[in-house]
């Protein structure tokens, strides 16, 4: 049976993007270990509201690890200590009685803080708008089975496409680079014949937009891959670099 644990939460509170933030400690008592991390924050927020205080603001939505909304830096790790899982899939049984748990927002120049643990990730939308698509209109496309695609290629494309756009890779990177995110989309589309047509243009446009928005460069520390909740591989970055260099050579 599950047990209860007590611990201290140190949570980053910051009123607005330009205001000064600080850690605030909250003692947590008798939290069942089968509670998810976000449900634990719900419990804390309920307590704060009952005391007449404002709850801690954090992004979350689907709570099943797929929407990419949740974004907490827990004890120095994006999405906390579990591998291959988002914050919402983290359960309190990973923690021990008496722990001090530090909770911070994503910290990166590309993701300004909105309030407390909520950040602005609209830069990702802008990178996608720069070229993260195949330029086809609705209708007038060939039959789905007209172009065979090897299972191997389709599986690799699916691996890359499993990126949820949460921003953990940027938060984990000492350079604040968005290369894993960009490479996942570029790879997915470059691997498929439908995306091949404009692969070169796509790689150049998405990288240019990423640079313009203030994300850093990749120095192959592999922190992104280690913290990615969907285990997106940095081999995608190698593929992106290949696409990018080929595109540049053709210019």
């Amino acid at each position, binding site marked *: 049976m599950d047990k209860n644990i007590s611990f201290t939460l140190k949570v980053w509170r910051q009123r607005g993007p330009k205001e000064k933030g600080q850690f605030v400690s909250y003692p947590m008592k008798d939290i069942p270990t089968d509670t998810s991390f976000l449900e634990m924050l719900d419990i804390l927020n309920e307590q704060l509201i009952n005391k007449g205080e404002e709850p801690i603001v954090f*992004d979350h939505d*689907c709570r099943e690890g797929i929407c990419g909304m949740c974004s907490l830096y827990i004890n120095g790790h994006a999405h906390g200590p579990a591998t291959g899982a988002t914050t919402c899939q983290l359960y309190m049984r990973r923690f021990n009685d008496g722990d001090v748990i530090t909770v911070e927002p994503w910290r990166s120049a590309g993701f300004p803080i909105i309030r407390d643990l909520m950040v602005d990730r*609209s830069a990702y939308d802008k990178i996608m708008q720069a070229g993260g698509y195949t330029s086809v209109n609705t209708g007038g496309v060939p039959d*789905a089975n007209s172009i065979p695609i090897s299972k191997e290629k389709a599986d690799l494309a699916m691996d890359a496409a499993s990126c949820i756009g949460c921003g953990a890779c940027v938060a984990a990177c000492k350079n604040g680079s968005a290369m894993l995110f960009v490479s996942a989309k570029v790879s997915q589309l470059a691997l498929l014949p439908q995306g091949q047509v404009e692969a070169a243009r796509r790689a150049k446009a998405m990288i240019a937009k990423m640079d313009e928005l203030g994300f850093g460069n990749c120095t192959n520390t592999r922190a992104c891959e280690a913290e990615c909740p969907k285990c997106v591989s940095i081999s995608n970055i190698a593929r992106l670099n290949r696409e990018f260099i080929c595109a540049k050579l053709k210019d």
Partner: protein
Amino acid sequence: MAKTIDSKIPEGPLAEKWTNYKAHQKLVNPANKRKLDIIIVGSGLAGASAAATLGDLGFKVKCFCIQDSPRRAHSIAAQGGINAAKNYQNDGDSIYRLFYDTIKGGDYRSREANVYRLAEVSNNIIDQCVAQGVPFAREYGGTLANRSFGGAQVSRTFYARGQTGQQLLLGAYSALSRQVKLGNVELFTRCEMLDVVLIKDENGENRARGIIYRDLVTGQIKRCSAHAVVIGTGGYGNAYFLSTNAMGSNGSAAIQCYRKGAWFANPAFAQIHPTCIPVHGDKQSKLTLMSESLRNDGRIWVPKKLEDAKALQAGTLNPNDIPDEDRDFYLERRYPAFGNLVPRDVASRAAKERCDKGYGVNNTGLAVFLDFKYAIQRLGKDVVADKYGNLFDMYQEITDVNPYENPMMIFPAIHYTMGGIWVDYELQTSIKGLFAIGECNFSDHGANRLGASALMQGLADGYFVLPYTIQNYLSDQIQVPRFSTDLPEFKAAEDGVKEQIEKIMNIKGKRSVDSIHKELGHIMWEYVGMGRTKESLETALKKLEEVEKSFWSDLFVPGQADTLNVELEKALRLRDFIEVGKLMAYDGLNREESCGGHFREEYQTPEGEALRQDDKFSYVACWEYQGAGKAPELLKEPLNYEYIKVQTRNYKN
């Protein structure tokens, strides 16, 4: 007095209706499209695909979503797949068969013409998604792979591992992003619609001309005008508090339209999904779905002996120690033809029936087993892991139980709402210029939706139906200049919204939004849940009045309204969930029959199957708002089946 309902079904034989419609509808020429604005609220499969398509047709589109990016919409969480009548497997599938299965699966409570059109365009969706680079699963020969889903005897479901919804949404989001770049679509993220604005035309008839919305970051109330408004804001399942929906999923946009006069159709039709992880404790915030695709290979069972069930409930017996002959594979026993792949409503009720009789297998007695032992014996662990690995990992992370070694435990939970805003064949609501697409309309699933059909409907509406039908409406709007948001109608709507917000902020009671929402959820599950009776629904209506009273007298929302305030957002949505709850109870009370997801215990066969009353209830129940505190008025749209013989659903043989 009697209002007539015109569902605008085109003339002609069933298979030619859509073709005829498209051939004769009015269109808007490219130069005029640029002069027409369309607001799309919601960026899920329906909203994003509609925004992208209308953008590439040349209309000026404004797309709103409450999340930080359109890609977060809850369509992303759909796991199993999307249906299409491609017949790539050569197993006898056809447009007609998909149409037939959908009507039958919906327990003969949907419109023939709409469903036929859905089946017809399903094939285009797969082509479109592949062209966008959606990485569907493939066979070694390079062709697309398929699997089976509930309610079908063919393999027509296309999938991308257990993340089909994600991949389809990202495809639509990519297409949408392209239109943003091209300047045809403007995005409004972290913005929530709070009212629809109606303006009378020269004939004195109301037309939807804009919305009032709240910028969730700054708290500002803003106005936006357009020639037409489309809502694609999903379902209202979160009225039950615990559901498989995302935390932010809400029915508020639909309720705002309802309050402005749009009819709400069949609200009682809510789908209870049979394969969710059971509830564990009172701190739980949501329920996690285990994909229906698991029923392809998993076998559902409970013990045959009551003493075994008691021991499982007490935690003194390991399920693996129960021999096969003492296991009751109740779906295979009751429904030999479809077995574990019966439709969701049937599977959910069968689980409830076993648990009600005391055969539940966990400490609460509210769970059944979904066992992969047999699939692993037959296919090997690697094949099972390849098909369902991510779902198994998810299950283990949540429950701390390894599903490769122990059977999964599952129980039904609220998942999808078939009811929604009434629309005609053109997806237009009863208010001119106001359209509803995807889950938030009522149209295609009748009383029960089949698995892998929600993605199909969302994308059908957005890519291939609305972009045609909305032009039939807009074609006579080309002379209408863009609307100023300074018009008195906008001011009045904004004032109304501000007044409501101020009222909520000034209650200054003692209870949090969640505490009242949980109370609402308990009432809904208990009295408007899987089995309903006249008494339970009447009790629900009384209790909902009390909940509404506590909302308006005892709610506490901290902070200010003119800044980011998550509790205020939740409070506004809860106000509307209470309204939805009442509508569901009214509708459930009126519908004195059992069909699909709506099971009135008074109406069942001796074997416990749903018993329809076709002579009395073969209609769409449309509810019209009559003002706060008043019971809504019922209008009926008769359902005439011209092509399908209405039968009792049979999944036995």
